[in-house]
């Protein structure tokens, strides 16, 4: 087991190295000389020379990468040119908002996706199965920003039940916080629920045809006990680990959802940074999401390894 863990953790190092190369490489896609762009319209040669030296633009590319990478390892992701704040501080500020939204979205995805998948597998080939599959296709094909608009039109404009946009911190007013996040969480969780439903359905179909389930039925156990205790408990192992891999989709979706509902989170931070040409922030956000994804992926793999006795043997 220890060998597996060491090997699995060791793979992270080259992956993170290449992630850093990709993110550093993004800078090189910028057209023109960054020093000229930063120098403004006057383009004073002294200012340009100063900026080139300050941002190490006069150094060769590998040296610049080295300086940048050492900074990142020390927690220096650069500074936002618009807000004049360190990128890491901005990330720390915005992360809890997106984490709360993502957490609620996962709850929505689990509450809808797993029961739908179980029902679909148990009633395989029935109208319920057909309906659940239609729901999955709907979830996978609906652009979440459009779904957000439809919900705003219904629940905010027509019925006036929920606020259309904005965010209230949970420490300020928990009820208002949840009211502002219900629609965004549903929008974000909808597509993940569809994926979860498909995973659960296929895992349940596999488990329900296993010998031990047949034995449980032959013993005369109640069908509910067979499905929930013998079926779902075993089917959930791959579902939960595969669910962890949906983290990327969750973050991508959060960018759009936060834009639709004007939520000041991680997603809005990157979009605003793009339009403000605040490239250090863009790089910082991509780096943080990639690192979080790699760590979650590792946790999912370890969890799968720990709960699956065949892998441990």
């Amino acid at each position, binding site marked *: 087991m220890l060998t597996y863990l060491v090997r699995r953790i060791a*793979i992270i190092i*080259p*992956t*993170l*190295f*290449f*992630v850093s*190369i*990709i*993110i550093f490489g*993004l*800078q090189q*896609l*910028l*057209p023109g000389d960054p020093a000229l762009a930063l120098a403004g319209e006057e383009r004073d040669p002294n200012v340009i020379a100063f900026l080139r030296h300050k941002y190490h633009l006069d150094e060769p590319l590998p040296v610049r990468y080295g300086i940048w990478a050492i900074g990142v390892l020390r927690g220096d992701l650069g500074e936002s040119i618009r807000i004049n704040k360190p990128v890491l501080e901005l990330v720390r500020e915005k992360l809890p908002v997106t984490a709360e939204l993502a957490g609620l979205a996962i709850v929505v995805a689990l509450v809808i996706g797993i029961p739908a998948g179980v029902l679909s597998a148990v009633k395989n080939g029935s109208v319920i199965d057909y309906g659940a599959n239609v729901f999955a*296709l*709907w979830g*996978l*094909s*609906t*652009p979440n*920003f*459009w779904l957000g*608009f*439809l919900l*705003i*039109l219904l629940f905010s*404009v027509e019925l006036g039940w929920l606020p*259309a946009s904005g965010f209230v911190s949970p420490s300020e007013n928990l009820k208002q916080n949840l009211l502002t996040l219900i629609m965004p969480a549903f929008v974000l969780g909808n597509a993940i629920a569809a994926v979860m439903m498909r995973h659960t359905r296929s895992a349940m179909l596999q488990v329900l045809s296993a010998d031990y389930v047949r034995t449980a039925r032959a013993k005369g156990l109640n069908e509910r006990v067979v499905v929930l205790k013998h079926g779902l408990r075993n089917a959930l192992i791959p579902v939960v680990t595969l669910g962890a891999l949906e*983290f*990327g*989709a969750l*973050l*991508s*979706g959060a*960018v*759009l959802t936060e*834009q*639709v509902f004007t939520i000041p989170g991680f997603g809005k931070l*990157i*979009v605003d*940074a*793009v*339009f403000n040409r605040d*490239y250090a922030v*863009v*790089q910082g*956000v*991509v780096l943080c*999401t*990639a*690192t979080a*994804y*790699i760590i979650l*992926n590792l946790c999912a793999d370890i969890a799968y390894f720990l709960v699956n006795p065949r892998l441990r043997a």
Partner: protein
Amino acid sequence: MTAVPVDTARERELPDDRPWKRALRRLVHRRGAMVGASFVLFFVLVAIFAPMISPYAPIATDWGAVRKAPSWAHWLGTDEIGRDVLSRVIFGARASLKAGVISVLISLSLGVPIGLLSGYVGGFLDGLLMRIVDAMLACPFLILAIALAAFLGPNLTNAMIAIGISAMPAFIRLTRAQTLSTKVEDYVEAAKAVGNPHYRIVLRHILPNILAPIMVQATLAIAAAIIAEASLSFLGLGQQPPDPSWGSMLNTAKNFLSLAPWMAWWPGLAIFVVVLSFNLLGDGLRDALDPKHR
């Protein structure tokens, strides 16, 4: 029992022995896939014949008809500067389908050769390429596409490049996995034994046999690319005004949700239907090409 002459028996079996023909027959019998294919064809025709079927020019403004609800003159209503929503939805199909197809072609043209190389050569090169792919997969698809589009500059061409590059790792992984399992097949070993050069083995013996899953992935990737283009255009990083795209129409519509909701209904519905169609077609293709999946 009468013995069947060998040639006659082979003639009878031949049609059934062709996997592509068998798969096509299975595909035709899948209702969902056929509905998807029909809608895809419909949208392709709409995009091609847009200038002929569109009632107005997509960028023609009419200040006397600003934010008008659907009517006989404007079937789907007008937008905030009096442009006909139906005409813009029709022309928007061009941007979406073009982005979907070109992005996937970019992914295919880069991902398939890299995957073939990685799987066939193996060893250090394979390890190196897979770590790079892992790194790309670690960056969430849309976030990587946003970052690329931001650094390349906001327009439709750059959005397509960004989506194509972001979707490429999935094709590398798939092609590599298929190559790894195909290169140990007897017919590949036989091709090696008779002295075929490597490029010929890869192009003539491996590639044709791994095309089926790549085609399925490509169809599903078109659906994802269309959503990604709409998302980038919605964020202002794709198609730029005044040219229409479904995503950019939704971007404008968000400011007029309560005053002119029809501005949001139709482009969103168009994205939904076209993405659903590609998903249905992709699911059908997967079932037809690999019956074990059903």
